[in-house]
């Protein structure tokens, strides 16, 4: 029985037992459902093994929405616990687990996945390509992300959730203070999904550099593609740092090394430094694609060219460089001395300049535009003022001496939610609504969408603005309760109400999806928003090969140019198209990686060795495999084009 004891939960509660039952029931229901409707083959052939960037994008999207639910439930639980003083809804240990998993799930498994979902779906279409450079690798990236996410969520019911905060600072995250396997889960879930992200980074850099349609020079790329390029460059240079850091953490926890311990020369600040050397660029990995989405949405719904294209590109490049030079501002109070703090204070404030450039460019794009207040545009218009407030409080936090007052208070929590929610989450919802017709061939209902927007943005203001005040009054973050005398009660109650409104907003979005699937008209045409870039030049939904004829581009607003100035996008005859074949190997590797991660978490060495051998054997098998893809004949293309409503221009 000793062997099985390791899987026990350290602090079992009825909630966790209920979740176990719920998970088991869901799995059984899914299996029975798939078997009953005979969908196993369809699911495996058409989705799980697909190398089509559009379907991989949609799989990322579904996973991200599931993780948004998980992270959102964590958030509501935290707000409910702190809504009134001395609350006993969660105890201290549970609260630690909840804020840790909320952070990790939202950053790694929700926001990253959502961003990569949109990049996967949109970037190859925007540059007029048929797929990404390495389609099979792309599928493997998805599976590694998915395995990481599943492994992390499994911790809740097997062995215990991580509880040292999403930053997992040592020595708190060491075995002395975090005995359960929770932090092992953290290390391996992030390690595996990080590997997938790194491969995505390489894949998209090559795709964007090498596969653009003829005529699309770098300075004629749509802004979202530019943001994807810069983001992926940051990914490639930031994620290896995380890899090493997590490896050291694993060694400290499982092999008794002394990287971050308090004895034998260990240096706990090394973790903090390394974590944020990766962690701060990570912030820009999330926000730059968001900026890219706004730069697509705003020109479309003001019907004007994006103002200051070159300065938009320049500011992103500057941000990407600065993002590697500011990491110390996450721990000004941890004893670096005045000179170091001043330098990092300065570099941090510098970031406000390129970001400010972007804000003014968007404002000047809107100026004199014919604004259409659609749902994506509402999110963009909400983003500009709310994000600016978050940016200004960021400059306040950047002042090292003043930071001694704000550090680790709710003020900080308010600040980073104020940039992440109006920045990243609004962008993802805007992008989701904007590209939805391209993905599924029908629009989301505008009226219901607007209700969701107002609930989410008003809810956001109510949830996070009070934290600025309670933070300045001294409420520390990550504390599971407080006494009535502190006077924090009223602010936290307002926060709770705001969080509830946001939850209602997300429920409205889910209802909107359901409603639109049932009632939305299906004949929206290829270009329902009267948009400007190439993804709208092909059919809705997009055929497997994206474009029957490769488009010819001569401006940064290729489709707009074609519509207004009579530029001809599609020249030449239909030719046979070469496409990659589906591959089952990434699914097998996903299973092996899951076994590997799971065995490592629980130190089951035979499992680690067997699955490790399996992973390397799969790689060798891949090398021996002869798969040169398939060809789609001209007749087949003609047939498909006719089915989608006539040959393309």
């Amino acid at each position: 029985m000793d062997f099985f004891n390791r899987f026990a939960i350290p602090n079992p509660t009825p909630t966790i037992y209920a979740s176990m039952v719920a998970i088991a029931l869901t799995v059984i229901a899914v299996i029975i459902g798939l078997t009953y409707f005979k969908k196993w083959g369809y699911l495996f052939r058409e989705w799980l093994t697909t190398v089509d960037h559009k379907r991989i994008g949609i799989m990322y999207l579904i996973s991200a929405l599931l993780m948004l639910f998980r992270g959102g439930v964590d958030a509501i639980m935290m707000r409910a616990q702190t809504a009134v003083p001395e609350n006993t809804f969660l105890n201290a240990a549970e609260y630690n687990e909840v804020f840790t998993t909320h952070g990790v799930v939202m950053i790694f498994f929700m926001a990253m996945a959502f961003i990569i979902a949109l990049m996967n779906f949109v970037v190859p279409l925007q540059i007029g390509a048929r797929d990404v450079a390495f389609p099979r690798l792309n599928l493997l990236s998805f599976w590694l992300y998915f395995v990481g996410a599943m492994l992390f969520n499994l911790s809740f019911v097997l062995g215990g959730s991580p509880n040292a905060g999403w930053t997992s600072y040592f020595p708190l995250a060491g075995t002395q203070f975090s005995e359960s396997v929770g932090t092992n889960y953290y290390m391996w879930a992030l390690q595996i999904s990080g590997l997938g992200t790194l491969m995505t980074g390489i894949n998209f850099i090559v795709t964007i550099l090498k596969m653009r349609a003829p005529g699309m020079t770098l300075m004629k790329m749509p802004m979202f593609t530019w943001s994807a390029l810069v983001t992926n460059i940051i990914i490639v240079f930031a994620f290896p740092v995380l890899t090493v850091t997590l490896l050291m953490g694993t060694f400290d926890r499982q092999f008794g090394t002394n990287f971050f311990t308090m004895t034998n020369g260990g240096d706990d600040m090394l973790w903090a430094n390394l974590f944020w050397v990766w962690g701060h660029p990570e912030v820009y990995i999330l926000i730059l694609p968001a900026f890219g989405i706004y730069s697509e949405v705003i020109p479309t719904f003001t019907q004007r060219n994006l103002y200051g294209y070159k300065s938009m590109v320049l500011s992103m490049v500057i941000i990407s460089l600065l993002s590697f030079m500011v990491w110390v501002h996450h721990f000004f109070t941890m004893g670096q001395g005045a000179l170091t703090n001043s330098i990092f204070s300065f570099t941090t404030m510098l970031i406000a300049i390129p970001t400010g450039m972007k804000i003014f460019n968007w404002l000047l794009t809107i100026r004199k535009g014919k604004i259409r207040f659609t749902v994506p545009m509402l999110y963009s218009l909400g983003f500009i003022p709310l994000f600016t407030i978050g940016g200004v409080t960021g400059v306040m936090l950047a002042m090292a001496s003043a930071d001694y007052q704000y550090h680790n208070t709710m003020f900080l929590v308010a600040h980073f939610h104020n940039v992440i929610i109006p920045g990243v989450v609004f962008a993802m919802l805007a992008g989701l609504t904007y590209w939805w017709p391209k993905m599924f061939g029908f629009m989301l209902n505008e009226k219901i969408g607007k209700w969701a927007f107002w609930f989410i943005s008003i809810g956001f203001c109510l949830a996070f603005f009070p934290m600025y005040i309670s933070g300045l009054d001294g409420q520390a973050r990550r504390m599971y309760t407080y006494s009535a005398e502190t006077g924090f009660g009223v602010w936290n109650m307002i926060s709770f109400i705001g969080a509830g409104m946001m939850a209602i907003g997300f429920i409205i979005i889910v209802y909107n999806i359901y409603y639109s699937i049932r009632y939305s008209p299906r004949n929206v045409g290829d270009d329902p928003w009267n948009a400007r870039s190439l993804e709208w030049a092909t059919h809705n939904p997009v055929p497997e090969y994206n474009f029957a004829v490769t488009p010819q581009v001569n401006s940064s607003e290729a489709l707009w140019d074609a519509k207004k100035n009579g530029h001809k996008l599609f020249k030449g005859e239909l030719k046979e198209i070469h496409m990659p074949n589906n591959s089952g190997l990434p699914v097998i590797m996903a299973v092996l990686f899951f076994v590997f991660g799971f065995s490592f978490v629980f130190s089951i060495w035979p499992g680690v060795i067997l699955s490790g051998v399996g992973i390397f054997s799969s790689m060798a098998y891949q090398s021996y495999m002869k798969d040169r893809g398939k060809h789609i004949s001209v007749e087949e293309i003609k047939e498909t084009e006719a089915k989608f409503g006539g040959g393309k221009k």
Partner: protein
Amino acid sequence: MKINHSQPLEYSTEHNRFSILGFWIFLGAEIMLFGTLFASYFVLVDHTGNGPVGAEIFEITPILMETIFLLTSSFTIGLAIHAMRVGKQKAMITFFIITLLLGMGFLGYEIYDFFMYVHEGATIQTSAFTAILFLTLGTHGAHVTFGLFWGSVIITQLIKHGINYETANKSFIFSLYWHFLDVVWIFIFSFVFLKGMM
């Protein structure tokens, strides 16, 4: 598959060019990986706790042997790629095998080195310094080990299919990887061992 004969064989198809560029970007990521290890090494090099310092455990002979093995192997993989360019399959395979044998020699000495460290009381758990020493050397050694398997897979394909646009591409990318490991070793040799022994 469209083959462009004006280019060297390893660059001759679109997919080949993608793979080579992708691999260069991957090497960029690898530089960050080893860069992080080196940065951590410099932070922790004096954090020896109660354990030995570098000068007490480093021995010049095995390190020199490792260096000679690995640097020579970098030369022979270069010869293999040259043989590939002039279309000499046999010479190419021979140089590939010599490269891997030299790699094995390197690995043998490194493992011997590790045993010696442990024997002298410097295990991975002794101090922060020994931990980062083992992790840095071990990461490099693991890369070499992976390279041995990878190289063997490529050799079997060279024997089976000869030099074509696919095997040429794989061999070329492998050579980039192998040279990169050599560069990393030069840094390890200079900044870990020579600096540590001074």
